């Protein structure tokens, strides 16, 4: 059978037509995402006066030092705890039967998609002075006075670990599923105990996943606004909340955009580091 005449559009070539499908999204992204981001960089060196004056604050301003240190401390702590807990869940999931795995996956995905505000609100209801936990403990006579569980770094870390856990479990699990089960079986067959085969075989093989999940959680934690702002109660400021205060309350665009720029530069540096360890696109679920 003779080939049908090609439609006239194909004078641009086959790929030309497919690029037309890509264009709307590409223009939207460039015009309404990348361009405004570049302007943030631009504002950071132009306002209030052109130059690197805003960036000098990184070295001279005591309040910025404190915010940066608080942010790094909370994020590192969150990442460490999240990895430990996430590893345990992913480890059990990777070895469980398909039914158990489905139920555990539901337990991971449901919180992941429930509004971050709802989750922060739930923690407020639980942790505040007259909250559920303090009331119960006082009621049982375990403690005399309510514990300070919230509006401090402890509250922020609890809320952040809760938020970040699914983001750690999913890449950890992907990594662990790629580990050849027969290596473990061989170790056990050669007489290694459960602990030995875990420490000697499974743990080293799962380390790339741990690094990937760790950097991912750390990056998400760095720019996190909602949970730290609610559970910190305005007393413990992390960088995202500090930026929003600079813009919405004291209207210092120079300082706000400088910190925002510093934040993305730092994040992309971390990502570059990460791309040497794991395949980034696999981490984000893209094929």
């Amino acid at each position, binding site marked *: 059978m003779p080939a049908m005449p090609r439609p006239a559009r194909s004078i641009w070539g086959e790929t030309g037509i497919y690029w037309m499908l890509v264009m709307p999204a590409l223009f939207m992204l460039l015009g309404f995402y990348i361009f405004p981001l570049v302007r943030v960089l631009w504002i950071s060196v132009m306002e209030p006066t052109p130059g690197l004056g805003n960036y000098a604050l990184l070295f001279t301003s005591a309040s910025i030092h404190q915010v940066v240190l608080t942010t790094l401390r909370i994020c590192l702590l969150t990442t460490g705890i999240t990895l430990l807990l996430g590893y345990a869940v992913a480890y059990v999931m990777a070895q469980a039967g398909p039914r158990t795995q489905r139920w555990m996956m539901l337990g991971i995905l449901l919180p992941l998609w429930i509004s971050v505000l709802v989750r922060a609100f739930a923690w407020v209801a639980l942790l505040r002075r007259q909250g559920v936990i303090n*009331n119960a403990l006082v009621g049982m006579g375990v403690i005399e006075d309510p514990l300070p569980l919230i509006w401090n770094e402890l509250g922020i870390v609890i809320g952040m670990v809760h938020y970040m856990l699914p983001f750690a479990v999913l890449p950890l699990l992907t990594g662990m599923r790629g580990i050849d089960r027969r290596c473990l079986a061989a170790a056990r067959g050669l007489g290694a105990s459960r602990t030995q085969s875990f420490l000697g075989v499974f743990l080293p093989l799962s380390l790339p996943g741990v690094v990937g999940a760790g950097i991912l959680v750390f990056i998400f934690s760095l720019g996190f606004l909602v949970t730290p702002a609610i559970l910190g109660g305005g007393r413990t400021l992390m960088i995202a909340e500090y930026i929003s205060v600079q813009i919405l309350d004291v209207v210092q665009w120079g300082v706000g955009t400088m910190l925002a720029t510093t934040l993305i530069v730092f994040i992309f540096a971390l990502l570059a580091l990460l791309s040497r360890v794991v395949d980034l696109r696999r981490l984000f679920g893209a094929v």
Partner: protein
Amino acid sequence: MDETSNVSRPVRGLAWAIICFLLLPIAIVFPVALTDKRYLSLPEEHLSLQHFANLFSSAEWLSSIGQSFVIACAATALTVTVGTFCAIGCWRIGSKLADFVRVLMLVPIIVPTIVYALGIYRLWVDLRLLDSYAGLIIAHAVTGIPYVVIIVSTALAHFDARLEQAARNLGANLWQRLWLVILPGILPAVVSSAIFAFIHSWDELVLALFLASRTVFTLPRRIWDGINEHLDPTMAAVAVLLIFVTAGLLVFDLWLRSRRAA
């Protein structure tokens, strides 16, 4: 199966305990929403639906729910359309450049929303889109693209490209191939991506904090004010409502996936 022999009982217990840590705090909003008190607490004498009544008789809450719904629907329609076409285009081109475009589409997941919020705020000041539906819809649509591109690209990776070639050889033009061959084949993934794009916009707070003020006051924006100003049990009732919406959409998604697998 000897699958379980690799994991000892205490470790399994620990994993389930951690999953409880994920779920139980969220569950606490259910009893709090049913409290008989006027302040945030567990019910003491009896269960009461007064806070749900408050919620559904408050013009402010209802208007915010309506606004969020409209914005989320519009943003979803926009982002699913451009995101799906983009994923299909990149899939068919398959060059290094197309791969780069697909990675570029993931940038909104990586850049903290607070940073983007500053940029889009300034752009909307110039374009007079601040505090408008259009402004928030576009911002939510752009930040929703990564979810659509990821989900649809994954489905396309499993889609048999020869079907499309066969249609082309039989003389189908691009639109016929798109509507009659490719889209029906990946429809469940497109619906799935719409669900996630909807949840993304419906729950989005940071952009709403910067871009909305008077005319537009979305549900997350009102919840944020509620948490910071007056913590009353109506908030718990709102939380319950949000949990039901999200859980309902997720169950719908799971059902779709199970049908796809069958």
